[in-house]
């Protein structure tokens, strides 16, 4: 008699269909079913644990369209050994997938309101599924505003899509970089400097923020200063994860497990904890 496999902790095989270069260090993996096993659907903001056979696992946010069944997209920035092994995969190779995990962006809370999406760097990747979903149910929402900050023009993700979204009615897309060259004629400066180009309706806006933690806190505070209640400001947090199901203990942030109570939290939930250094 054999012991049951611990299903949620066991990676299921998925085939790499494509590895697309987004920028010099960021790539998007497209995964398709392998061995006839369908891939699970997901909600915007959720993540998977991607397993490279015999090497290890990483939590990566899903960056594709939740309505496109049968494929999962992951936008990965190569910064170290583990991420390098992911972006070095070739089409046809097989990786393991566990998930999806986590609390998604609260799009249903934003019905009838403006959506203000503020992304920094690779943070646009976990927000892209939310944008797809908003555009799919466009009449459920009022305005769509996307503010995106990156290090330099060559680090901007999804430029064509950003331009296309900006051209849609009732939509505003503003991108900025920390420094630019002569070919960049857009904004240069911090993403919060873009706020002055907006006419915000504080009671009627839900903000979704994703990026480096310092950036998210600054953006949240500045949005609060402009009248948004902290219960309407959402951040996607990141911590070390091994199990992704709330049992290994690594991802704790104060009383929360980022893998299951998050990664999306309201600023109201996070505020008492993120003010403490090294919590």
């Amino acid at each position: 008699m054999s012991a049951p496999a611990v299903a949620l902790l066991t990676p299921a095989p998925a085939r790499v269909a494509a590895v697309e270069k987004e920028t010099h260090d960021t790539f998007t993996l497209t995964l398709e079913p392998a061995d006839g096993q369908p891939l699970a659907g997901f909600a915007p903001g959720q993540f998977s644990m991607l397993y490279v056979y015999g090497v290890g696992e990483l939590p990566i946010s899903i960056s594709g369209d939740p309505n496109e069944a049968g494929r999962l997209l992951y936008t990965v920035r190569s910064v170290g050994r583990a991420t390098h092994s992911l972006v070095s995969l070739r089409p046809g190779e097989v990786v393991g997938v566990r998930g999806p995990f986590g609390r998604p962006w609260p799009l249903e809370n934003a019905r009838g309101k403006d959506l203000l999406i503020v992304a920094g760097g690779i943070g646009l990747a976990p927000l892209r599924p939310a944008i797809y979903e908003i555009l799919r149910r466009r009449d459920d929402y009022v305005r769509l505003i996307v503010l995106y900050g990156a290090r330099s023009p060559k680090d901007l993700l999804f430029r064509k899509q950003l331009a296309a979204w900006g051209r849609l009615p009732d939509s505003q897309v503003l991108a900025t970089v920390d420094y630019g060259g002569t070919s960049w004629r857009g904004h240069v400066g911090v993403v919060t400097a873009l706020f002055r180009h907006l006419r915000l309706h504080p009671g009627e806006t839900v903000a979704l923020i994703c990026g480096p933690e310092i950036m998210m806190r600054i953006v949240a505070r500045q949005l609060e200063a402009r009248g948004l209640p902290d219960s309407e400001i959402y951040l996607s947090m990141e911590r070390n994860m091994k199990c992704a199901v709330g049992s290994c203990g690594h991802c704790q942030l104060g009383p929360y497990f980022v893998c299951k109570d998050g990664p999306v939290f309201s600023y109201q939930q996070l505020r008492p904890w993120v003010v403490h250094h090294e919590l």
Partner: protein
Amino acid sequence: MDSSHSCGRLPAAVELSGLAQLLECLQRRGYQIIGPTVREGAIVLDVIEKLDELPAGWTDRQEPGRYRLERRDDGALFGFAPGPHSWKQFLYPPEATLCELARDGASFKVLATGELPPRRAFLGVRACDLAAIRIQDRVLVEDRFVDAVYQERRRGVFIVAVNCTQASGTCFCVSMGAGPRVEGSFDLALTELPGPGGHLFLIEPGSQAGREVLSEIDRREAQPEEVAQASMALEKAAQQECGLETADLRRMLFGNLGHPEWDLVAARCLSCGNCTMVCPTCFCTTVEDSSDVAGARAQRRRKWDSCFTESFSYIHGGSVRLSVKSRYRQWLTHKLAAWVDQFGTFGCVGCGRCITWCPAGIDITAEVAAIRGG
């Protein structure tokens, strides 16, 4: 204090020979018995086959950072407090294989693992440890994610609990509401009454399985004075030097995350992680991936981990909790504050192991008092 049976009858009483019969009965039913035994200067938990392997006539002296065994003159079998081992290692093993995988062309397939634990009986579970098992049940089986490794070991366990008749220098189960009387789900509960006339054990069943086993051993009804003696022994166990005030504890700790005491304790803490290893409720683990040289087989193994390691909170090229201070604070506030948010109870049962086995002699009850003190 009344230790009578739930339906009002007096408990049963068995002699030493009856206890030997208990062991044989459990073995006949296919249980591997785990119980206390002396080894390398400590009372540890290991496979027990005969009654004489139990630590008869041994007791312990425990203080912050100190543990040693001493002889006692009454030959008691259970006259000691928790040692470095807890039942956690048998229910939530230090290492477990999560899955084994094999290359399958360009893909891989998952192989069924063959690890199946033996049926076990735990002999000598103290009130604190029983409470700890209940806490781990809540964390590992009653929350959203059910841990299969823990569940399959927990299901078949036969628990023979033991009421403590004395406390050690580091016990504080009374403060935590986790003892000294055993409560919760056990199959049998013993209270040892060593006396001049010979050994006597009051024994009560806590389940149908317990009743069935009890019916197979020689016993008689306990005398009222024996029951009174057991009550007095429990009262003696309730006299504890260590104490932790739990009123408003969660709010007090979360409201003092910047208290200067964290810096003081950090100067002493070696972040060795002993406390997390001996703690019966700590459940943090990590996953290690490996494969054979050819890459034909790969394995995912889960291992105990400790929040005291520097890499525990590693992300993006650095650790969130780099300082020892932040890691000690994380451990203590998780155990006594965050646990309440996460699971509705404290994570501490007052067993005192972390105090005894800390090489720096750090006392969690003293730390809490220092922070409360302002």
